[in-house]
């Protein structure tokens, strides 16, 4: 057993680096399909600093998570390098809204059935869809939700555009999770 720990200690000692690790957060409010407003938090992590051999290194998570009090988390995921973060459709989802050039939501009639993995909404800054690397501290993201699911009436959030507060960046040790979403002050 002692030998195993010695072996691990050598490995750990040789991997000490100087990368800063950060948690990014942005608070907002979303509406459930039952019409109830609820506090929501977008969060993700990023590294910023230098690798052990001195080379500058910056990387943020390619997707972001949204947690809401009392409901399962949602995720906006990235695609290619500059592709916007997208909420992927699930089985049975249908597209019921689209976003106009003026960032307005308009209904789609009749709704368009979507295969799993398609675009059910995105993260935007000033009306344009963005990847996670564009979400800098101080900027105010918005998320759109464009789908519903007739077989899942409790699917949330309800279709809409939700604007979030300024992004905060906090230095953290390891992947420390955000604070309690249910006791956070609603905006």
């Amino acid at each position: 057993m002692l030998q195993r720990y010695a072996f691990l200690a050598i490995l750990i000692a040789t991997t000490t680096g100087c990368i800063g690790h950060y948690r990014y957060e942005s608070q907002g409010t979303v509406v459930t399909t039952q019409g109830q407003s609820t506090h929501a938090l977008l969060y993700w992590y990023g590294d910023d600093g230098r690798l052990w051999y001195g080379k500058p290194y910056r990387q943020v998570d390619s997707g972001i998570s949204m947690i809401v009090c009392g409901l399962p988390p949602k995720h906006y995921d990235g695609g290619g390098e500059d592709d916007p973060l997208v909420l992927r459709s699930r089985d049975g989802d249908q597209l019921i809204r689209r976003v106009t050039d003026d960032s307005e939501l308009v209904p789609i009639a009749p709704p368009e059935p979507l295969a799993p993995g398609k675009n059910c909404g995105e993260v935007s800054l000033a009306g344009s869809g963005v990847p996670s690397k564009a979400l800098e501290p101080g900027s105010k993201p918005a998320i759109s939700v464009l789908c519903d699911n007739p077989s899942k009436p409790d699917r949330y959030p309800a279709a809409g555009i939700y604007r979030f507060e300024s992004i905060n960046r906090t230095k953290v040790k390891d992947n420390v999770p955000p604070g309690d979403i249910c006791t956070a002050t609603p905006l």
Partner: protein
Amino acid sequence: MPVDFTKPAHILAVHGVQTGTDDDIDSQQKIEKLTNNALARSHIERDFESIGFYYEDINDKAQKFYRLLARAITRGEPLVGAVLKQVIDLAGDVVTASANTSTAKKIRRKLAKKILESYDSGNKLIIVSHSLGTVYALDTICELINTDGLFNGDDRSSWPVQGLVTMGSPLGLDLEILGQVVFAKRSIAPIDAQYQVLPWHNFFNRLDPIVSGHVFGSPVEISGSRGPVERRYGTDTSQSQWLLHGHAVTSGKQWLLAHIAYWKNPRIGDRLVDMLWG
């Protein structure tokens, strides 16, 4: 017995390269904690059971001859002996998997049996695998897809695995060492379904040497969420009713510490909750 989606979900944890024995492995506890923390973070309660699949003892048994040999040649030099023992333990696991030895087949049979236990009891199952375990998980799922009576088209209740999560996977590596192809490209078994897809969420850290194949931990080139696994399997999965999502994640760690940090990433816990109950 078909999957009864009202029953508690099962999460099967498949570990990666390990030293020690099955008793030293705590992947089941780690995934249970990760999931429970995610549920608590969102203040929701759901029933689930985390299950561990262990194969280190099978590997150790297969490596017994080499261990004895190492002990014999390092007699009188305990430090060298200890290091060599660890090297055999770690490297042996990789060789077993990449060369598709009879030991690898035995491990896949045992994993399939474990998966089918959940299926036979009607519980929805997702697999969370790490490192070398991702190779066994992918291969075993493909074998089950090719098994009569399972994965019957769009009838999701006939799917013994409802989703796959891979973390720190070497599946994207395209290496040849001493003439031996390490982690040859897998053949993705197509699911004969029209609408349903098998979600595969692949989490990777650019600094993880098992993902990049870079011994000294230099970052692997990616494009957004597309890393080595997505480059290698993106087309095959999309043609086979699989839905592969790549996720670049960060942990503030480098090299092998980046490789073991996935187990504590809250965003992976949130994803598991979303996959099972979202």
